[in-house]
């Protein structure tokens, strides 16, 4: 491994499902000699693509969990994270984006910019990930890379510019014209491994010159040197590449490459583009916090000699135990080193350090800043930071959305019970959006996640990987309760009839908080409540939030302010103040106009224009708020906010309403007050359940 950090690239490959990104990754592995035969997704040869390493993924033909692999290309070290295409696994995408420096956005030359690409692109913008685009499937009927490039500008707001032109298209797709070097590239041999350069075909010469001029115009916005050179007609490929790179790094330019991974065309120039245009670890500022300095922001340097800091972004259960994927941000991690897990302050010895190639691995001695590696034998969670002795550095945590849907799971027998426990413990460590809790009243195990498919996959994994046969209940929406106005409380908890008594008085108010979080404010003056009982009051309020009085869901966004109170020299205790605070909250809550909040999803539906009306109606019928629509060459996309509770079964309804021609994606958008009739229905149902339980 070269210690030259500038030659490391940590990239993701993101795309809409079925855009061919797994095939593309497979070809990259072949051309970089990491594999010696090419397999297809859902392979006819029964082997399946190498990056789809879980059984379930191979069966479904989709990539569910990220797999990391390391390849070498043109003297560069490239770590590739294959990212999932389904939005229910958004956390996987988010996790990848946290550790990536750049990405390749794979688009289908026929379908263009599809709904999932829009969602993934939005996430990439959030993490400021520079990207290049690869328009795949140029061999397919209807392929039109120019139209896809326009769509990148129109639908995603990119400043996209073609760096290649196709030589032929559809069945006649032969190769590409390189608009930087102004030459033709052909891919010969059984697997396209022999690159042949040639003259630009005469019939493409005029268009190539026109596109070259467009490229110079776009790139010279990022380089005065190129602008001058272009005016004097002495622009060199090096100057163009430098300018394009500057544009990509500033997120203001997206170079577009074209090819067909399936037909083994265009992959190697795209790999060259990764090394030319995507950032190396020194190009990207690394923000962390110093826990010894009260969480003050610190900027890490990708210096192999610095204090070692690494971040766990993925866990995997392998045959040798837990494999933790780490990105080393600073310093060098060596086999045998001792590092400290920042969260637990535990010392961890690095026993085995490996470089991953999908489900195969290679033992290594050390990993330098900027690299992505796997380590065995440590017990940790996703998002943990490991640092060598020194300041207590923690990488800023990734954005983790709250789960929006729950299911009860029942093991069918005691063996399944044990296996289910093991599986759930593993999954919660791997995936912060997957949560498990035991419902105290029903004694049921409840799993929660980001969507139906998300939970479905974990239930399947329980069965397949852990032999845990489970039955599931109906999916439940994760509602919340919130107050809508200020309400005062003045509560005296007093039990002084014989024996040791209880005495606590709390006075104050609750009101909606501005940021939607719980906040406790102590405004007691003059020691009316002794300081040692204040934390008990906080605990009492906090405990009240677990289960709201309306429909039993957690209460969010409360600011509890304690202004006065009273205590007794003998009978006051933590318990008495906790009880008083709980009872005070119960009283005040009723007067604070509590309401039910429901999770609302951002839904994007895309289909042929003739179904636009059907799509509108389908969303309106589900209480959707249509935000807007886009028309593009006979296709329409409709964006809407729709309550999650209304989205069950949408996939089937949409298919039947549009002859299977429309598709949709959704991701969590926000919590919003449920309308009155929905709230009343939920209240009725909750009351009836409660009275049934009381009767029983």
């Amino acid at each position, binding site marked *: 491994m070269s210690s030259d950090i500038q030659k490391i690239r940590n990239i993701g490959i993101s795309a809409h499902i079925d855009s061919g990104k797994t095939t593309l990754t497979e070809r990259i592995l072949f051309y970089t000699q990491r594999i010696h035969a090419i397999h297809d997704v859902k392979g006819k040869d029964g082997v399946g693509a190498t990056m789809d390493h879980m059984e379930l993924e191979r069966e479904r033909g989709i990539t569910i969990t990220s797999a990391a692999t390391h390849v070498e290309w043109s003297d560069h070290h490239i770590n590739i994270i294959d990212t999932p295409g389904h939005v229910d696994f958004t956390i996987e995408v988010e996790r990848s984006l946290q550790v990536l420096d750049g990405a390749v956005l794979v688009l289908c030359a026929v379908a263009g910019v599809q709904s999932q690409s829009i969602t993934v692109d939005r996430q990439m913008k959030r993490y400021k990930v520079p990207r290049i685009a690869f328009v795949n499937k140029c061999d397919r009927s209807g392929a039109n890379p120019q139209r896809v490039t326009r769509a990148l500008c129109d639908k995603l707001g990119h400043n996209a510019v073609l760096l290649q032109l196709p030589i032929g298209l559809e069945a006649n797709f032969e190769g590409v014209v390189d608009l930087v070097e102004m030459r033709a590239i052909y891919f010969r041999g059984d697997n396209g491994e022999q690159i042949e350069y040639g003259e630009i075909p005469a019939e493409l010469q005029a268009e190539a010159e026109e596109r070259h001029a467009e490229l110079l115009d776009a790139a010279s916005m990022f380089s005065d040197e190129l602008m001058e050179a272009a005016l004097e007609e002495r622009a060199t490929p090096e100057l163009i590449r430098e300018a394009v790179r500057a544009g990509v790094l500033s997120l203001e330019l997206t170079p577009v490459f074209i090819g067909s991974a399936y037909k083994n065309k265009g992959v190697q120039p795209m790999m060259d583009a990764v090394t030319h245009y995507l950032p190396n670890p020194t190009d990207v500022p690394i923000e962390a916090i110093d826990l010894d300095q009260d969480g003050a922001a610190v900027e890490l340097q990708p210096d192999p000699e610095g204090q070692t800091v690494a971040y766990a972004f993925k866990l995997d259960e392998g045959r040798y135990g837990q494999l933790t994927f780490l990105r080393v941000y600073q310093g060098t991690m060596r086999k045998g080193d001792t590092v400290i897990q920042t969260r637990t302050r535990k010392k961890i010895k690095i026993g085995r350090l490996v470089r991953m190639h999908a489900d195969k691995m290679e033992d290594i001695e050390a990993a330098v800043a900027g690299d992505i590696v796997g380590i065995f034998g440590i017990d940790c969670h996703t998002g943990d930071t490991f640092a060598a002795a020194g300041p207590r550095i923690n990488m800023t945590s990734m954005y983790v959305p709250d789960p929006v849907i729950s299911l009860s799971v029942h093991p069918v027998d005691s063996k399944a019970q044990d296996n289910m426990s093991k599986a759930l413990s593993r999954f919660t460590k791997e995936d912060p959006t997957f949560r498990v809790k035991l419902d105290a009243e029903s004694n049921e195990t409840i799993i929660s996640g980001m969507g139906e498919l998300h939970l479905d996959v974990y239930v399947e994994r329980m069965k397949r990987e852990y032999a845990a046969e489970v039955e599931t209940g109906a999916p439940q929406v994760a509602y919340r309760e919130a107050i809508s106005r200020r309400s005062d409380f003045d509560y005296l908890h007093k039990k002084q009839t014989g024996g040791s008594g209880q005495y606590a008085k709390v006075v104050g108010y609750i009101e909606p908080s501005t940021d939607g979080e719980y906040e406790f404010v102590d405004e007691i003056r003059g020691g009316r409540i002794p300081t040692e009982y204040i934390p008990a009051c906080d605990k009492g309020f906090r405990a009240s939030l677990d289960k709201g009085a309306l429909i039993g869901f957690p209460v969010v966004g409360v600011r509890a302010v304690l202004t006065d109170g009273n205590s007794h020299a003998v009978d006051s205790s933590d318990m008495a103040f906790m009880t008083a605070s709980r009872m005070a909250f119960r009283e005040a809550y009723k007067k604070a106009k509590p309401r039910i909040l429901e999770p609302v999803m951002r839904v994007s539906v895309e289909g042929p224009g003739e179904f636009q009306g059907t799509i509108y109606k389908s969303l309106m019928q589900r209480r959707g708020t249509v935000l807007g*629509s886009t028309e593009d060459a006979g296709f329409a996309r409709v964006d809407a906010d729709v309550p999650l509770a209304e989205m069950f079964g949408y996939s089937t309804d949409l298919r039947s309403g549009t002859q299977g021609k429309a598709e949709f994606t959704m991701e969590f958008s926000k919590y919003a007050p449920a309308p009155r009739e929905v709230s009343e229905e939920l209240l009725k149902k909750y009351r009836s359940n409660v009275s049934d339980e009381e009767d029983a």
Partner: protein
Amino acid sequence: MTDLMISLRRSPRTLLERDGHPGPGPGKLGLVMARAGVGKTAVLTGIGVDAMLSGQKVLHVSIERTIDKIREWYDEKLVEMLKHNKKLDHLGPLQLTMERNRHIHTFVGQSFSLERIRHTLDLLRDAMEFVPAVIILDRTEYTELNPDSIAELKAMAAEIGAEIWMACRTHRDGPPAAPGHLPPPADTFEGEVDVAFSLVPQDAKVRLHVIKDQDEMVDKDLNILLDPQTLLLVTGVAAKK
């Protein structure tokens, strides 16, 4: 319509309010003219927010722009108005009201046509019972609208009782306006224009000229200033008086 919503209104459209109607009125065409980069789209977005604050429904049609981008502008405009009035805590409910009273429709890949606009209006009415009172047409310089098609557009709007707002880019080095006429290129369809504003950058502000009102050429400098960041009236509704 709440008092809060009325108090937030700071768009130049408020200058046109008469006979209890918040804008130029059904079937009328309002034009915002300026050189590139002065803020025509910002004024149009401000007009859209103004219409919604007046309790009207808005269809915002744009060319080659993303829905997210346009929503962002509307949200920014609303935040600015609320900040100005120190009422930022009302953002959530007002955003929701705006979303329910606004539809953004974008055309990409040269798919814009009058026929598609009519189709969109029909779909919105039939599938969503959404009938706009204000139609904003942004970036019409990317279309091939001509005097005939503009007349057709006005007729289409009049049928549903909507007013139309459009922007028109003037050129710094272009020929000046002939006396009594709108500056080129708006002069080619000035017969269809009922209200016209022009925006002129001046020092740290943008000066608003009312060039045409109630079908009459006015061309008066009423000493109206817009905030260059927001393109809203500097001093709110009071400024017009």
